[in-house]
């Protein structure tokens, strides 16, 4: 059976980190499981955690008056869910729902922020890796906003 730091090391966001940093990060994580359809978090709640998906997928949703719940993005195996734990006011901006039975490593945000405050090298590495993930998803969101498959874009 793999230890948490081994599992974390295999994920794209933490791959290549030194063993000491992986152990520090793993020290803030626990395995969790969510049934299909259950919510990991809701908009407006305290964002005290983030998740690394081991299996399954998580939909980020928002409730739109008159249109019901809309899925904005789906995240799958190896991806990280949650940035709000990094920045004040530490509140979830959207709802997160397990699309299938989903296994995650759940990280205590305050625990990891504390370790980053006392080890700036770890803090820099984590921030750099989360920023790369944010940029990739921001670029994808911009493409999504273009509505490239809409009728206006068909020649």
């Amino acid at each position, binding site marked *: 059976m793999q230890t948490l730091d081994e599992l974390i090391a295999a994920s794209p966001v933490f791959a290549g980190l030194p063993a000491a940093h992986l152990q520090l990060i793993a020290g803030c994580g626990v395995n969790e499981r969510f049934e299909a359809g259950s919510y990991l978090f809701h908009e407006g709640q305290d964002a005290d955690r983030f998740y690394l998906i081991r299996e399954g997928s998580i939909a980020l949703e928002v409730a739109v008056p008159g249109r019901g719940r809309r899925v904005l993005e789906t995240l799958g195996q190896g991806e990280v869910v949650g940035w709000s734990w990094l920045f004040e006011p530490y509140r979830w901006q959207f709802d997160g729902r397990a699309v299938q039975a989903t296994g995650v490593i759940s990280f205590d945000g305050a625990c990891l922020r504390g370790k980053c405050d006392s080890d700036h090298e770890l803090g820099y590495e984590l921030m750099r890796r989360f920023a790369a993930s944010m940029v990739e998803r921001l670029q994808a969101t911009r493409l999504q906003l273009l509505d490239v498959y809409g009728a206006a*874009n068909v*020649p």
Partner: protein
Amino acid sequence: MSPEAAIDAMVPAQFILRAKRRESADTWTLELEPRSGEPSRFAPGQFMMLSAFGSGEVPISISGDPGDDGRLVHTVRAVGLATRAICEVGPGQMLQVRGPFGRPWPVGELAGADVLVLAGGIGLPPLRPAILTLLADRTRYGRLTLLYGSRSPEQLLYPRELEQWSARGLEVQMTVDSAGPEWLGHVGVVPRLVRQAKLDPAGTVAMLCGPEVMMRFAVAALHERGIGSERIYVSMERNMQCAIGLCGHCQLGPTLICRDGPVYRWSELERWLRIKEL
């Protein structure tokens, strides 16, 4: 092309609409039979010029199975005057057809390769003949994968066929731009699927068709995964009118899409696609 051949290529043939199937709110699949009785032969990726009487002519890729003799199959999205008129034609009525035209997908050169097919929206129909050709001789190829993006679950084309293709050895991953909670698939853009796809870059050939901006970003993701421009093929869409390289309306840099395309290696086009004015 000789003057006689050019004249022949400009004369439309009469085709009878034999069957019509609604794929989504604005998209139809049409099965056409030549009035002459002569079967239509084509290669995957080629296109025809279609018109309903009095409503202008448009290039539409063939979406049928090259292995089926006789009927010509097109999936058409009704978005303009000409395509709306084509989609309004009923069974038993006539359409005017010229073609087939253009350079096809390089399906014959893909033996032994892993093939990654990327389709966006109405870009799936031009890839359907290539997919059917690959699946007809499945053991000749390595891993076959389709990454297919659509605006919403309701606009996904050929849903039953996608399941059949999956059962026949094509790994199918779909994604949509927006969905309600009942959708259990992926939400997001095709380039994100490319970043997550299982692939061996050295042995993979990619074929793409979709909106040009989607293809640009998908190609960038393929490059990040290590697939070079020489191994990426795209089908281009421009204002094709004569379809035989005479009128120049579909010019892109030094190439005429109707004559030299619509299928190109990305390496042939990337320089020209960087020039926004073209």
